[in-house]
């Protein structure tokens, strides 16, 4: 797809793309190259002494049981966030698609959490679930649940998942809602005439037709869980207790910034980049396919 009509100028187009290209080189490519370069180095905290150590940072990472554990934690976290987020949003969207009156009001009341920063979402939920003063903790304790996510890994995981999902519901909801509204009503009516109940219609007609949206949201949610939830983790569990919520991005930050291990942190960055590239390729191929629908 190209324009037939174009302008001609020897210099203008370069001037026009220059700002973006300069920023891209300065803040994307140069750091990315540096990350790769740093990942082969061993440096002290102040950058006074630097040694080239080859692949040592990488081999150290893969020998480190905790780094592998962090992969597992990240996988579990993203699956939980993506699936529970999608399930809840799909439920809300289906219901909102059904109601005639008040749909807009519901929509408005469901989308505002999008405006909340992940870090603040973390603070809000950490406060509700605070081990000593949290209001939800109080209710849970009344029901006999021993709630203390400071030490219980699975509870900490639950907390960060709830905070992350809460923040993402609005996004998923909007896409599902738009997807549902674009399904021709005639299809559903035909099925209804054939005697299919609402539940069966949902599973045999609506859900399959929504599958492109669902798949797209799945990828988006996994990317979200991988990267954007940094704020949630940092404001609540900071990766603990133990390693229970230490997702890959948080580990990069902790090792690089707090522990001043530039080489190890950069090696992790490089591995993450490879993962993002893979995810982007999946996303991109899907976008291409979606164009053909």
């Amino acid at each position, binding site marked *: 797809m190209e324009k037939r009509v174009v302008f001609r100028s020897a210099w203008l187009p370069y001037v026009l793309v220059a700002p973006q290209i300069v920023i891209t080189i300065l803040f994307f490519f140069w750091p990315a190259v540096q990350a790769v370069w740093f990942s082969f180095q061993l440096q002290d905290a102040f950058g006074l*002494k630097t040694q080239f150590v080859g692949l040592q940072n990488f081999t150290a990472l893969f020998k*480190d049981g905790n780094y592998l554990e962090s992969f597992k934690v990240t996988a579990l976290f993203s699956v939980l966030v993506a699936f529970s987020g999608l399930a809840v949003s799909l439920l809300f969207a289906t219901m909102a698609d059904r109601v005639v009156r008040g749909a807009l009001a519901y929509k408005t009341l469901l989308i505002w959490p999008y405006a909340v920063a992940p870090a603040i979402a973390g603070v809000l939920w950490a406060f509700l679930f605070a081990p000593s003063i949290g209001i939800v903790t109080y209710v849970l304790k009344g029901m006999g649940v021993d709630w203390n996510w*400071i030490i219980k890994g699975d509870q900490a995981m639950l907390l960060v998942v709830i905070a992350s999902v809460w923040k993402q519901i609005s996004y998923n909801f909007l896409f599902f809602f738009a997807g549902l509204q674009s399904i021709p009503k005639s299809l559903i009516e035909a099925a209804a005439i054939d005697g299919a109940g609402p539940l069966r219609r949902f599973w045999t007609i609506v859900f399959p037709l929504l599958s492109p949206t669902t798949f797209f949201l799945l990828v988006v949610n996994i990317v979200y869980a991988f990267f954007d939830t940094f704020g949630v983790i940092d404001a609540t569990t900071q990766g603990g207790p133990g390693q229970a919520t230490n997702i890959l991005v948080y580990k990069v930050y902790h090792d690089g910034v*707090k522990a001043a291990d530039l080489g190890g942190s950069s090696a992790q960055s490089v591995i993450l980049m490879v993962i993002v590239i893979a995810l982007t390729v999946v996303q991109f191929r899907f976008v291409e396919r979606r164009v053909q629908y």
Partner: protein
Amino acid sequence: MKIKNLAIAWLTFGLLSANAHAQTEIQWWHSMGGALGEALNGLANKFNAGQKDYKIVPTFKGSYPESMTAAIAAFRAGNAPHLLQVFEVGTATMMAAKGAIVPVAKVMGDAKEPFEPKAYLPTVTGYYSDLKGNMLSFPFNSSTVMFYINKDAFKKAGLDPNKAPRTWKELIAAAEKLKASGQQCTYTTSWPSWMHIENFSAWHNVPIGTRQNGMGGFDAQFSINSPLHVRHIAMLGDMSKKGLFTYAGRTNQGDAKFSSGECAMFSGSAGAQAGIKKAASFDWSINFIPYHDDVKGAPQNSIIGGASIWIMGGKKPEEYKGVAKFMAFLSQPEIQMEWHTSTGYVPITRASYDLTRKSGFYDKNPGADMPVRQLTNKAPTENSKGLRFGNFVQGRTVIEEELEAVFAGKKDAKTALDEAVKRGNEILRQFEAANK
């Protein structure tokens, strides 16, 4: 780009106006928030008012790790401050950065300002000196870990409120009684690694690591998986299972659990007193930390926490003169006493301790001298004069992660501490390699 030009213009203006007054500015980055920050600013103002040549400019840079990170970044960019307050955990990292710092002894010597390392408490000097006894950084705010009890809760449980548990056995017995009286949380702690590994080792005169707890060289190894360590951590794990110990988190979250009355016994920084005084609506006391009475020689002495002031390298001689003047100012017993009594940090020189005692402060504030008495309980040994491990910010995280696994009942104490030693040693080897 406009902003940058503006900044340059502003900077030039700032330099010019500084020249006009012929006053040398000395930047001091610190991590003292709230009331502590006010006390610190008070010191700087006093110094600035007392002479005309130098001006100390204190800047709050967030928590300890944050201000250290900021200073490292600034150093790499070539605009580090003159003075930087670094917590004890970062000592080894600073010490290894030979090109980035200047030993305080050298700065004082060059400026011919009086400086006597022997004036400091031995636990303090030991912490911040190299093996030859050269003081590398200037001790500023030192604390140690203390044991607090809620006297009202003790009374309610039928315990003698004036007899705080002295040993772990007594503590467990008290905890059981407190529990029976309906106390939900009987014991908690802030800074778990500092209390239950670092100070625990010193208090029982066992090493945290080889090579004099790392002070002898970068090739040290952790030794926190000794039978005594394992026994102690296993005991805590057991207490946690029985509901006699409530874990609060890796930093000072335990403070609030105690001051709110939720937990009846608590170990935390001596610096927590100020907060407890303000918030607690019950009668409490500050005590020595408990020990295991069957360990020979225990209790030894506890080790310090808190921070010291490091002098960054690459500045002008004139500026170092001002730094030396400021350090000399801070060394005065009167100033030290002011800092000690207004903040709750321990007096770090003999002279200031004596001065404070003579002033009658301890009679009016019973317990206020407990921290310094605990620090000087006995003459420090190789195991109790402090610790110096490379990249201990990361090392501590590792220890805390493993402790959490024990308290959560996921690992037994032996496995966890073995793992902590293994992972900790990897960090030490990495640091050793990076600082060859």
